[in-house]
């Protein structure tokens, strides 16, 4: 379970999050919607531990552990996964090597045995098949020369292998055509279960047709201003974010 209490954070002394309260129980998927500049990406970076974001108050506890005190790699080992809005290109780093290194680092931190190259390839190929992705995804350099859709699919592929307990999807739907959107959504839905929870950050209702959330929250000016069921997303789609601040 993720419990965020009164979380405030700033970038270069500019306060972006101003007291976020949010609880995501195990097994649930919550959507966070909101206008540009509301702090959606900041929330995802603060939770994953990116440098340059200063937590000025409040707490974020995942499975009883204060995650704000942890390094990004320790958060990953604790089961947190951030699907990037703009996945980073790593020229010279093979995708298979990258993902195997990540998987083994996480397994090591969790006290699980590491996978050798053969066992990894077997597992990776099986996941690729489930996600309808070609095997050559493994041979290419990480995200180099990938289309926008391929990059997002590569994020979901990593997520499927790392088996996080909490996935944060930062505008994973941006730049996706309808087929890619379906593959990505299927990837997330495949992980659904009593031990998996997700924060789905999105501008649009469209993604939530495929990944149906248990709760929808509206983030505006650094705070959660409204929460509701899936129907809230439909309402926002119809009427926009105007007026949400006051609600």
């Amino acid at each position: 379970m993720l419990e965020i209490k009164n979380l405030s954070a700033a970038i270069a002394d500019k306060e972006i999050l101003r007291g976020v309260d949010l609880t995501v129980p195990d097994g649930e998927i919550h959507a966070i919607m909101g206008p540009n500049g509301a702090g959606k990406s900041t929330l995802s970076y603060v939770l994953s531990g990116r440098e340059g974001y200063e937590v000025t108050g409040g707490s974020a506890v995942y499975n009883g552990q204060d995650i704000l005190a942890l390094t990004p790699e320790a958060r990953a080992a604790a089961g947190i996964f951030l699907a990037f809005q703009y996945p980073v290109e790593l020229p010279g780093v093979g995708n298979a090597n990258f993902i195997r290194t990540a998987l083994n680092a996480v397994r090591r931190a969790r006290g699980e045995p590491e996978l050798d190259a053969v066992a990894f390839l077997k597992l990776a190929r099986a996941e690729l098949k489930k996600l309808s992705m070609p095997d050559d995804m493994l041979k290419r350099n990480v995200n180099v020369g990938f289309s926008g859709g391929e990059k997002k699919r590569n994020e979901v592929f990593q997520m499927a292998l790392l088996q996080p307990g909490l996935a944060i999807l930062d505008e994973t739907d941006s730049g996706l055509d309808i087929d890619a959107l379906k593959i990505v959504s299927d990837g997330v839905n495949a992980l659904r279960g009593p031990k998996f929870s997700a924060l789905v950050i999105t501008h649009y209702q469209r993604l939530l047709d495929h990944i149906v959330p248990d709760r929808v929250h509206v983030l505006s000016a650094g705070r959660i201003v409204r929460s509701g069921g899936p129907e809230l997303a439909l309402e926002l789609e119809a009427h926009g974010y105007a007026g949400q601040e006051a609600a």
Partner: protein
Amino acid sequence: MTALPSRKLEAWRYTDLRALAAISFAEPAPVTVPALPDLGLPKIVFVNGMYSVSLSTPPEFLQKFAQVAEASDLPLALINAEQARDGVTLSVPDGVDAGAVLLISYASGIKNPVALHPRHRITLGRDAKLTLIEIAMGEGIYWHNPVVDIALHDSAVLAHYRLQNEGEEAFHLATLRAKIAANAAYESFSLVLGAKLSRAEFHATLMGPKASTHLNAAQLLRGHQLGDFTSIVAHDAPDCGSRQTVKSVLDGHARGVFQGRIEVARAAQKTDGYQMNQALLLSPDAEMDIKPELEIFADDVKCSHGATIGALDPEQIFYLRSRGIPEDQARSMLIRAFLSEALEPVTHALAREMFETAIETWWAQK
């Protein structure tokens, strides 16, 4: 003795040899040689510049050393010619694939500073092949000043892999000259890790049509090390190709130097020349000096060069860490990725493993 070059010479503008000039060298004393690398290959071992019968398991085609006159005006090659007492003379006959050979130089300047000036000659006949893996190492204060003269006849292929892992108080100044005939290929990669001050100066001459060369290197330096990679590639015949990818990773107060000149003669039409020099600075006190030069007299050529200096990208580090990879390992992965293009000519599995291990060890020792 011929004087050491000063920085007033353009070719030595960035590399100051005054610290070397201040040392008085003595005759080498007998040394105890530590365990040397063994790749399971025929092995030629030099100790303090002299061939060691007991430590070598010589390959075929190894000949007796014979002094030759130095025809150039290169100061270090002249000094070498004056001082040389020994060296490898390896001559592979036409059509023979001589496999891989390991050449180790071990020097010890622990008791007294010593200077070694080995003179090596590698000749490959028509269609001959050889992989030469060189390791230079040692301890204490010493000056290793090898000259390697390489002659490749038509269609010969020499893969030349050099691991410069000299002791931290050493001076390593190597002159390598390759004459490459038609269709022949000189494929080289140097990994520079050691020495207080080092320079590898390559002169590659593409003499016949469709001759080619790779002159690649990676320099990994820290502390107050200086590593200088200087190359002069002469395209004297048409349809030749030269490719240079030189990467430097500089930490602490280290300095890297790259001087690369491509000379394209009037006759060398359809030349394809490529030169890329990139440096990664891991510290604000590190420095890289880059001097590319193109001198082109032919009118139908493709020559490109590029140079970049940068730091590790924090976005890339965060991406790796967010996937559970510890920060130190993330940096190491990105450094190896940065170096990977330079290692492309290393197709020999043992040599590649040796270099990869050396790079990992370098990172682990920081």
